[in-house]
């Protein structure tokens, strides 16, 4: 953080320079337009200022050619801005396949983060430089927004939904993490930092402290503790569907619909089991609403995802991500 007088925020992620290039393009175009109009305005205002009270300037009706010119040229420039912007936006919304997943849970007024290896952090996230990090973001209470200016990323944490963001840090250092969506009294204190480290340092950092459990293992433990295992057995003799190999696949529902078993579906099935019952099963599962928190749900999802059958691991590219009322 430069304490002096910065005019450009630090660029510390792979997309930051992409966003800044676009920013600069729009700034140039709009800057030229603005200065041009100001000059014309001032020049006309001074050059044609009223010199005598009975001055009657000649009438100018307007000009179709001019009107078309200043309609079409801005329009074309704007199309260019839109297309470029859409390209950057798609990039911002499509994490690389090999990204490591960090789960983010917003809660008034803190950020709870968990690494794929199980380490938990609050208001601080350590990440290795040069490695793509995918963030799965949700909230326990109201809407928050995960904002790292140096990375040029921002995504709302919405209760009941999973939103995605990703970044790949390009330089080591400590960067601001802000909550950007107003969430109450301590909104401005819901800040933290992202610590970008060399990969080796990151490994050392990971190794420090008590060996944590990975989300998959936590999820497996919860799966037993909550007695999920008695119905969702590994053979098909249980009262509930077999979960092995289900994640990312298409499932036929009792209603006849087909749905992809993604994180949102698993979450809904834990909290509202009767909403979308798999074909051939009875709606007998009780709700776990209130018994598991958002982090535990994420662990359960990680566990169920780990039960994927390797051959089908190449999941279809287009699967749902969104939350509750999207179907």
């Amino acid at each position: 953080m430069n304490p002096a007088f910065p005019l450009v925020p630090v660029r510390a992620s792979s997309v930051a320079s992409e966003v800044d290039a676009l920013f600069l393009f729009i700034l140039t175009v709009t800057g030229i337009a603005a200065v041009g109009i100001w000059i014309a305005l001032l020049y006309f205002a001074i050059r044609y200022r009223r010199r005598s009270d009975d001055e009657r300037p000649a009438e100018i009706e307007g000009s179709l050619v001019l009107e078309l010119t200043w309609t079409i040229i801005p329009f074309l420039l704007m199309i260019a801005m839109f297309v470029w912007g859409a390209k950057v936006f798609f990039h911002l919304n499509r994490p690389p396949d090999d990204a490591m997943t960090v789960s983010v849970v917003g809660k008034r007024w803190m950020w709870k983060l968990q690494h794929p290896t199980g380490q938990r952090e609050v208001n601080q996230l350590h990440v290795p430089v040069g490695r793509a990090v995918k963030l799965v973001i949700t909230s326990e209470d109201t809407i928050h927004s995960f904002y790292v200016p140096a990375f040029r990323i921002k995504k709302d944490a919405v209760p009941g939904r999973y939103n995605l963001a990703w970044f790949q840090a390009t330089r080591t250092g400590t960067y601001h993490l802000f909550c950007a969506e107003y969430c109450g009294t301590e909104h401005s204190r819901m800040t933290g930092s992202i610590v970008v480290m060399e990969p080796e340092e990151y490994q050392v950092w990971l190794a420090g402290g008590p060996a944590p459990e990975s989300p998959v293992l936590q999820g497996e433990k919860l799966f037993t503790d909550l007695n999920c295992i008695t119905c969702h057995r590994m053979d098909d003799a249980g009262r509930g569907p077999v979960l092995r190999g289900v994640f990312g696949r298409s499932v036929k529902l009792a209603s006849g619909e087909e749905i992809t078993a993604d994180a949102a579906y698993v979450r809904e099935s834990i909290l509202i089991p009767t909403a979308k019952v798999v074909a051939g099963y009875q709606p007998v599962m009780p709700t776990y609403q209130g018994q598991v928190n958002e982090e535990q749900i994420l662990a359960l999802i990680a566990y169920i995802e780990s039960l994927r059958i390797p051959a089908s691991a190449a999941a279809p590219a287009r699967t749902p991500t969104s939350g509750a009322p999207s179907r």
Partner: protein
Amino acid sequence: MTSESRTLPADHYLKSGWDLKSWLLTTDHKRIGLMYLVSITLMFAIGSIYAGIVRWNLLVPNGSQMSAEAYNKAFTGHGVVMVFFFLIPSIPATLGNFLIPLMIGAKDLAFPRINLLSWYIYVIGAALTMYALLTGGLETGWTFYTPYSTVFAESNVAVAAVGIFIAGFSSILTGLNFIVTIHKMRAPGLTWFRLPLFVWAHYATAIIQILGTPVVAITILLVALERLFHFGFFDPNRGGDPILFQHLFWFYSHPAVYIMILPSMGVISEIVTCFSRKRIFGYSFIAMSSLAIAVIGFLVWAHHMFVTGLSVYSAMVFSALTYLVAVPSAIKTFNWTATLFRGSVQWDTPMIYVFCFIGLFLIGGLTGLFLGNLGTDVHLTDTYFVVAHFHYIMVGGAIMGYLGGLHFWWPKITGRKYVESWGKVSSLLVFVGFNLTFFPQFVLGYLGMPRRYWSYPEEFQILNVLSTAGATILGFGYLFPFSYLTHSVFRGEPAGDNPWGAKGLEWTTQSPPKTHNFDAVPVVDEEPYDYASPPKETVRV
């Protein structure tokens, strides 16, 4: 400039009674306009005090000036009061009310009693909301996002929501009155393409008021129901979608920005042609671009929601449409500038406000391109960049236009002149103060300072101090017009019927006008803004 006698006419609308009853029960659109003027000036003062509290807190980074609760209530109060009780009624309810019947040669609006009713509704809504703000306050932000407003907020959300719901109907009824009046009450010969552009702008505004306001009214009502009776509309615990609230809210609240800016654009069109003494350049393009803005303005709302997890495909649609709405605003700006070309430009106070408007609205509009852009919006949304952007539109645009219009028609409204030099000084103060307040906020936003922050990292302090300094100057800039305009009501020199040598029916009647505006129904046989011929002599009876 004027050849008439320098005394006020013997009979005019202000003389039709001095007692309170003659005001509170009046159906005269001019008096109702003045009642609105007083009410919104009061609300503007309250909103400014809130703004002062906000800027005072932000002088220091650690929030040591006040508690976070107090700060959150201050910025919410600022937003609620300024948006719903100042900016939305500002020009339409005051100047629009006063001028539209005069401009179209009518004796009054189509429904004078409904016009009075809408003022009462406004006052009731404002009183209720102020009650909520002053007893316990409100800390949801003016946007009332769910589930914060329905579940977590610990303040008077329901009362304030009902107050805003009520005030919404004041806006709807004003718009309804304008639409009917403009359609049905025009003087003989006043065809659509002879209408003043001020009237066109208000017609476009009225469309938004009619078609947009009811949606936010029902949405705010649903928030109140969810909060008071635990109904479930947006509650994620019951499968509700808080993002749906944002959709419905912005369906109105984005077009609402055009409710604030379109009338101001109408004012600018009137002034720029008068003080260039030349027909406005591209009349029909300016008129049609107002309608285009009103319609396209409804198609862009989700650009406020690009980082909420909105589907990327939907985001693309909304971003593309957003770029479309920028075109008509650009057309207007080019046409105003072209009007000056080879004109006879008079640097009087109203015209100086026009220069301010065009210069600042330009920045406001162009920075909108950064926010409508999918790539840059992600970084900039919910930061001070947005705050600066919309203040350039609403203060640099809407309020500059409002002040310009107030100065331009002041002689018509009061029959008297204000002191020109005071007008020039204060317009300069407002311009300088405004830029010093809000330009640093663009930089702050680009650097990443989120909005609605009570405390902030130290590296942002310099820019915040600059901003607060600017706000102080701006505050003084606003005090001046308030004082010298008020002074001129009592001590101002009589202005004459048409001190600017302006065109338009409102200048053909006496200043201040009679209660019934015209002695005989005027007949229009001129094209609009026919500045080539000298102004018509006023017919005095």
